[in-house]
């Protein structure tokens, strides 16, 4: 089993053909060091990674391994201390200014005084989407995650899973081409999490985005991703990049197959568990 894992790691380092042609996101020796009162802390060290167009990449690692920091570096919310980040052959900053990033965080981070629909509308207002088309777009998105009936509901009236769905479609509202998701389902119970994974895959099938999905849940990474970048902690670096060869569309029954479990096993080995 160990040898098999090693083989798949080697395979993974060669990138999928589409990614080799035109990487959507390219990280070259990216490092992040935070200044703290107790001296500098290296959060991310020398990460190089290429993410293809319309690829679903999972960043898998233990808590505190710098995977969220890496995601923020890609989305230009945290500047890298070293190395380069390129998005579509330009700086990440320019991509953010073109509104190419849709962020989803661990907490839904909705505005409590806005209804579900108004929350989804927020980025359209900020970006300056034509006002007459805003409502239709928001309703279409809410409908796709089964929340149309709750469009007038305020966040405190919605369950945790509903709020996170609103947060996901909010990040899709203006059709950004890249979805950056920071442990979006980790605060949810398992049943809700599974439902939202299905919703996300269904959304991805329609709005085919490049997705970078941070998680510490091995099965979640295997079930959702095309490739899994496995990270280790202190400082955060990428141990291995594992391709997930499960066919699409993914089905809940696949979770019980031998192939699925082999992927889980390989990821666990790469994590050093």
């Amino acid at each position, binding site marked *: 089993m160990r040898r098999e894992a090693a083989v798949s790691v080697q395979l993974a380092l060669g990138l999928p053909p589409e990614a080799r042609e035109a990487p959507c996101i390219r990280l070259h020796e990216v490092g992040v060091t935070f200044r703290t009162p107790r001296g500098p802390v290296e959060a991310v060290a020398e990460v190089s990674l290429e993410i293809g167009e319309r690829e679903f990449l999972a960043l898998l690692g233990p808590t505190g391994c710098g995977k969220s920091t890496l995601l923020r570096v890609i*989305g*230009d*919310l945290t500047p890298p201390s070293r190395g380069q980040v390129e998005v579509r052959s330009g700086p990440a900053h320019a991509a*953010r*200014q073109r*509104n190419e*990033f*849709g*962020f989803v*965080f661990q*907490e839904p*981070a*909705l*505005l*409590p*005084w806005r209804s579900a629909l108004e929350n989804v509308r*927020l*980025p359209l*207002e*900020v*970006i300056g989407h034509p006002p007459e088309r805003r409502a239709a777009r928001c309703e279409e998105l809410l409908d796709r995650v089964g929340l149309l009936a709750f469009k007038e*509901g*305020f*966040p*405190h*009236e*919605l*369950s*945790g*899973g*509903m709020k996170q769905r609103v947060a996901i479609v*909010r*990040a899709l509202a*203006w059709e950004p081409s890249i979805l*950056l998701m920071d442990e979006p389902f980790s605060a949810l119970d398992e049943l*809700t999490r599974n*439902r939202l994974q299905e919703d996300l895959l269904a959304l991805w099938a329609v709005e085919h985005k490049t997705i970078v999905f941070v998680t510490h849940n091995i099965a979640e990474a295997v079930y959702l991703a095309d490739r899994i970048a496995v990270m280790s902690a202190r400082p955060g670096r990428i141990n291995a990049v594992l391709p997930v060869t499960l066919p699409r569309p993914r089905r809940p029954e696949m979770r019980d197959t031998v192939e699925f479990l082999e992927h889980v096993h390989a990821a666990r080995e790469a994590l050093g568990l």
Partner: protein
Amino acid sequence: MSDPDVQAPSEPSAWERLLPPALFLLFVLVVWEGAVRGLEIPKWLLPAPSAVVARFLKMKTLWYHTGLTVMEAAAGFSLSACLGIALSAGIVHSRFLERGVFPYVVVSNAIPIIAIIPLLTIWFGFGFTPKIMIAAIISFFPIVTNTTRGFKSADARVLDFMRSINATRWQVFAKVQFPTALPFIFAAFRIASSLSLVGAVVAEFYGSDRGLGFLVITSATQLQTDLLFVAITVLVVLGVSCFALFGRVERSFSAWQVEQGYQR
């Protein structure tokens, strides 16, 4: 999906809430009236409630004095609210203002307000101006500190999201920070409005020939204790009304937040 939040048990009706304190007040007034009559306490020492009411009904100029004081307090409070919110917005958006000016806002709270009334009288005379200024100064601190805290309590994730979609500073302020601060602002108004009333009255103690503060001082020096009680009662009613008014507005704006705001 799981259920939407379960509704909290309904509040007791206004009748149920108001009846016990009303009964208690009635009890105190009856005992007071009985004690004054039974023990023959002189009127200048402690007038009976009936005597206070009689004086209240006879007092034709009461509304004139009350109107002046309310006007001064309202002007001072409004001035303070406008300047305070503007300064808080500046503090949140500028490191320089936060570091350079905010410490003095805190220091301003330590100014013994009574001691600067003579100074303001020297500068601005015996008219309305020093009264309005005292009302403004006394209510400034709670407005600035509370509003600043409100602006700063905006959800860091929401701010990240706004940054990720290139929101301008103004958009972040108008769509996130200001609405977040509203419950804090109304909590500040609740406290500041009653404080501004206190400020106006205290300012009237010093060199004034009208207003509720003037009424308090003259009735006390002339041992017109019944008039003193009338003035105090009006002040209490005004203070409680301010508190209740802004408390109501605050609640209506913070239905989504269970517990937030300023405790002094």
